[in-house]
């Protein structure tokens, strides 16, 4: 009356795993930390330095985006904030949407909104003209005092 050895499923060797879900999880945490730095820097520069909130006008924005590094910083902030926010919203929709149909619709709206905002925002940052002129070639009122910058 001896028992046969219990069959053991052999463990497989370690292999490359799908990283999608892990990547999004890591992204959400890393982007969150970076965004905290970026947003507080943004708020400090715009609201605290110089004349504070009253200084913000077309000329102020144009003055910043005339420098390439401000363009890069604001673009990174735009991208991270949108991806981070969209991912978070997507979780919320998953949690609270009752049916598959409403979930699919809300996710689609969210996705489209995110793409539109990222595309528009990128266009604004990268194709920004700090010294716009009218039909005659004269600067419009309100351009920064340093125009033209070249």
């Amino acid at each position: 009356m001896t028992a046969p050895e219990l069959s053991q499923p052999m463990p497989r060797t370690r292999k490359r795993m799908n990283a999608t879900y892990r990547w999004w999880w890591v992204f959400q945490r890393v982007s969150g930390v970076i965004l905290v730095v970026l947003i507080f820097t943004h708020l400090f520069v715009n609201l605290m330095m110089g004349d504070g909130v009253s200084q913000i006008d077309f000329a102020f924005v144009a003055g910043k985006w005339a420098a390439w590094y401000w363009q890069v910083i604001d673009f990174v902030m735009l991208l991270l904030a949108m991806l981070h926010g969209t991912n978070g919203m997507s979780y919320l929709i998953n949690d609270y949407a009752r049916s598959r149909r409403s979930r699919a619709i809300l996710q689609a709206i969210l996705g489209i909104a995110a793409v539109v905002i990222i595309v528009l925002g990128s266009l604004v940052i990268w194709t920004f003209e700090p010294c716009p002129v009218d039909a005659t070639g004269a600067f419009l009122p309100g351009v920064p005092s340093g125009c033209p910058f070249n």
Partner: protein
Amino acid sequence: MTAVDTAPAQVGGVPSMTVTLRIRRLNPEGVGDHAAGEDYWEEFQVEAHATDRVLDALHKIKWEQDGSLAFRRSCAHGVCGSDAMRINAKNRLACKTLLKDLNPAKPILIEPIAGLPVEKDLIVDMEPFFASYREIMPFLMPSGPAPERERLQSPEERERFDDTTKCILCAACTTACPVFWTDGQYFGPQAIVGAHRFIFDSRDEGQWDRLEILNDKAGVWKCRTAFNCTEACPRGIEVTKAISEVKKVLNTGEI
């Protein structure tokens, strides 16, 4: 055992009181004014001692007022995991919750655990829950020939996964998890606890098979550290911590 005769050691010291229980009910075949499958609240009043368990109060209702009240129970002291339910909006075991720890002045709300299909009153279909558990291959997978005596394991190695060996599969954690409530897109905390118990067992060599499963869509990345599971666990397992340890292994590649 009724509430009155359970505790002679305490009788005298503990006066009896009237408690109201509001129970979320559902009869799959319909009863009275209630259609089949319709859920509704019903109130019962029972005489009980402060040191009685919620389970004792439920038994008093079933045995003295309404025999059709359906709930699962077995050991009545918190080790078999049959009677997890939502008591005052928190997942607990009815046999481990004493009336004195709830506010007896207000009705005690009792509902079935959330996220699993309700079959009758407080009884839910546990099959999806056990299916998630089976998914993570909850059994030792050693490699190589079995030794003649025991496999050696130091007390420190044994201690590494002690917390998650306490799990009694009551589903209190999984059904407290807001992510699990969304139609089965997530294995739930219990399955991860079940996997943790083997991933950190020095004798096991199937860790990467389990980790691969937990790395997938319904796996650990769904966890948003709400801590509901840790709060709900009647065995005091640090569930969220266990999940975080699994995430850490997946991120660093080291156990």
